[in-house]
């Protein structure tokens, strides 16, 4: 806590609310863009340009009946969406949005990040992997075979892609010599790491799409095979929490990509948070673009890609980076 307990609480509150509003806005952007990619209009009835669509969706979700399926384990069933949501929001808390800022009109300065530890990257990875327990517990506690299979797929996918993901990120860590996001983004003032770490970035990006369960790697909720996967038996706000957690994870991974490979909050003219938003938005646009373009892969293709392509490439990148850093 760099600014004391009270300031940290206020910053966390503000960050969570901005994040949820951003998420709601991005659902509109996603539907609008997907519509455009498919030569449709997308949502355009609620409010100007359909902008109030997320609020209408929220109202619909809130009105739905909250029920617990017969044979489910009630406590775990109710706990699962909260685990997914809490971990998704928690992981985002470590993202830096700049260095130091002053509140206009006063001389009160504060840091544009909630925490900066020497192990930030590991903490994000740890919280992210805890988030998968929400999916696993939800799938198991629903007492439905489709939900269980969806949860299983999520775990198998996580375990396969976490290895390549971590190895790809280690290249950046070696080059920056730190696990702290602030240090890593400050180290890129001259050159973004996406250029020297292009191999690592490609592996990171593919693995990040897989870890956030976005198409074309959304096998955990492949509708033709496992209905809706782990959240088949969830409805109303509980479903909405799973969906929100999934999208917030995608935002977190975008922010991670922006910090590790695109200089994070640094950039000319505009303030840090704006640059961070632009970079996150760029990542999300590409994610939506990919969703509209690529068909879903089969499960064996997913496993083959993870273990036989990404892992060797990430290892190669790691060895090259280590050799260059040592002998330079």
């Amino acid at each position, binding site marked *: 806590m760099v600014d004391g307990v009270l300031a940290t609480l206020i910053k966390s509150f503000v960050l969570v609310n901005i994040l949820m509003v951003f998420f709601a806005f991005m659902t509109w952007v996603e539907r609008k863009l997907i519509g455009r990619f498919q030569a449709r209009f997308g949502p355009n009835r609620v409010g100007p340009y359909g902008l109030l669509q997320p609020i209408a969706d929220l109202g619909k979700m809130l009105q739905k009946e909250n029920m617990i399926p017969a044979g489910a384990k009630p406590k775990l069933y109710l706990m699962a969406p909260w685990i997914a949501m809490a971990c998704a929001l928690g992981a985002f808390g470590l993202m830096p949005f700049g260095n130091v800022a002053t509140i206009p009109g006063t001389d009160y300065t504060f840091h544009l990040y909630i925490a900066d530890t*020497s192990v930030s990257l590991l*903490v994000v*990875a*740890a919280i992210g992997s805890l988030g998968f327990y929400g999916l696993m517990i939800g799938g198991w506690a629903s007492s439905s075979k489709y939900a269980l299979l969806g949860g*299983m797929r999520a775990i198998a996918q*996580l375990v396969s892609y*976490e290895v390549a993901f971590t190895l790809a990120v280690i290249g950046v860590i070696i080059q920056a010599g730190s696990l702290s996001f602030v240090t890593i983004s400050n180290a890129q003032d001259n050159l973004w790491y996406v250029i020297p770490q292009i191999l690592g970035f490609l592996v990171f990006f593919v693995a990040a799409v897989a870890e956030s369960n976005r198409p074309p790697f959304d096998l955990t909720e492949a509708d033709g095979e496992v209905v809706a996967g782990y959240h088949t038996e969830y409805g109303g706000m509980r479903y909405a929490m799973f969906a929100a957690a999934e999208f917030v994870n995608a935002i977190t991974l975008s922010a991670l990509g922006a910090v590790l490979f695109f200089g994070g909050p640094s950039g000319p003219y505009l303030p840090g948070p704006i640059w961070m938003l632009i970079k996150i938005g760029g990542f999300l646009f590409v994610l939506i673009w990919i969703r509209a373009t690529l068909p879903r892969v089969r499960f064996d293709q997913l496993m083959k890609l993870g273990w036989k392509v990404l892992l060797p490439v990430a290892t190669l990148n790691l060895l090259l980076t280590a050799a260059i850093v040592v002998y330079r």
Partner: protein
Amino acid sequence: MDIVVFFIASGLAIASAVAVVAQKNPFVSALALLGNLVSLAVLLLLLSAQFVAAAQIIVYAGAIMVMFLFVIAYVGPRSEIGAGERKPWQVWLAVLASALIAIEVIVVVFGATFGDWADLDGDYGTPAAIGKALMTDYLLAFEVVSVILFMAAVAGVVFGAGGRPRRLSDDEVQAKEAESAEQRRREASRAVLDATRDSMGEGA
């Protein structure tokens, strides 16, 4: 602040440890063990061991417990063991083992003298400090552990893959080919028979 966090985390650690053995359902037991590991990570954080805390969650929660839950969920409700199936010697062995651990803890706690808080370096517990320690003072232990883990991984692959298919001798290959030729001949003649029977059936 530290004291409050310490008591909450230790309380959760003890409660979840009890839940691991008290729960009948193995899935819930594994989740309780997960809760225990997370509470221990919080305690490690209080000891300024940030790297070990993060690594504990990534390794145990992110990889090991996930595999536990994976297997338990696949094996299914069959794995819930009734109270009658316990063997008495297991109970006695467990009591003995816990008594030994309790004695060890008592001896250590009451045998130690608690002095003032130790002064820590600025980089104590950071990845850099731990990496340096592993690569200099504890290099041998580190390498031995990595070799053991590698062996375990290879052994896992060998066991998981099952026996390698045996290479057949020439005689066996010929016998197999003859057998499949015989099989094909039978199928062909059966198809002819079926066709004949069908056409006769239609005629009658």
